[in-house]
């Protein structure tokens, strides 16, 4: 019982201490930022390095992915640099810098949402010729498919050849064709779309 009480007490004491040191920290950051506004490069450098863990934790909470997080942290730093005249040293510093980081992390998250909305996994595209058909019909479909493939624009045909027929990985296909991974994905997706329309699939 007493051990529990002790734990409780030390927990409370730790929280109180954390609050105290946070406000100390904020005062120090605020002073460093005020110096940076007057052109003190060393204060600025020290401030930004001290703030990095905070920026990273804010961005990580929104994005999770490590690369995206670091990109958002850099976006936040660049924004902070351009709007550094908006900081008023009479106000706490932490909400100011946190709001900037939140904003840039949100932007990154939205941009990622838009990207994933546009892309589809090639593995989910399914076989073009139904393997359950009798051989004669499969042959017919194959002829039709060959004709359709011939009519594709060269870049789409190439992308389809490498990614779906030779079954190379995107990285290998990219190295072979000289196209970027993104361009390959788009070309393959478009090629499949064209074929599907031409062959009357839903």
């Amino acid at each position, binding site marked *: 019982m007493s051990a529990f009480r002790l734990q409780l007490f030390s927990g409370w004491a730790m929280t109180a201490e954390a609050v105290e040191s946070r406000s100390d920290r904020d005062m120090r950051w605020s002073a460093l930022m005020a110096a*940076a506004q007057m052109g003190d490069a060393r204060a600025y450098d020290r401030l930004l*390095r001290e703030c990095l863990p905070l920026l990273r934790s804010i961005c990580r909470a929104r994005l999770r992915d490590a690369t995206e997080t670091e990109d958002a942290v850099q976006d936040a730093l*660049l924004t902070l640099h351009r709007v*550094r005249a908006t900081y008023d040293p009479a106000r706490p510093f932490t909400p100011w810098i946190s709001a900037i980081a939140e904003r840039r992390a949100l932007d990154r998250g939205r941009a990622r949402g838009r990207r994933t909305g546009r892309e589809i996994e090639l593995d989910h595209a399914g076989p073009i010729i139904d393997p359950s058909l009798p051989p004669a019909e499969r042959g017919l479909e194959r002829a039709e498919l060959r004709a359709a493939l011939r009519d594709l624009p060269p870049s789409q045909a190439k992308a389809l050849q490498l990614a779906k027929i030779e079954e190379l990985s995107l990285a290998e296909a990219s190295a072979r064709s000289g196209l970027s991974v993104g361009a390959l994905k788009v070309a393959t997706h478009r090629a499949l779309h064209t074929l599907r329309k031409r062959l009357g699939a839903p």
Partner: protein
Amino acid sequence: MLTEDLISRMSHGLAPVRRLPSPTALTLRWLGIAVIVVAGAVALVGLRHDLQARIDAGLDLRQMAAAGLTGVLAALAAFQLSFPDRDPRWALLPLPAFALWLANLGWGCLQDFARLGPEGLHLTTSFPCLAFILGFGLPLSLAMAWLGRHAVLIRPGPVAALGGLAAASITNIGLTLTHHLDAAAMVLAWHGLAIAVTTGAAALLGPRVMRAAEA
């Protein structure tokens, strides 16, 4: 680039910056510009001839007061939101005054309808009116986008929209002082158009103006 290297680059050769004035000071500056624009228009085209009579009848005073209050509060909200650490709820500040203003216009419309019947709601096209709307709205919106240009990386959309609302409110006062419109339906339609055009254009174009001014 590593983030640590980015920091070194950013702090290398750091230039001093002048701290921005507070949101209240920016609001006062913008209101100063607004007074100059409205006074300039009055000096240019004169007050409408029946203004005194209408004010005596209490018709326009209430409406101008509501519009003025909306303008001041919307401008203050816009400048508050142009700073990163301000509460987003500032955006709600001008809404009660805005509602009061719209209600006032709508009430005038109903009164005209009761007084004159359907004739009171008859609309005509008034192109000079549009010129007035643009003449007031454009400089006021541009001044807002210029004074709040630092918001471009923070909340450009809401700041521009609130700035547009502030500009539209002052435009409304300017219209009431200088431009002759009688029927409340006409006033509602044209002033409503003024609000929609100014706020919409500011929300769409404001961020671009800010970006151009920031660069």
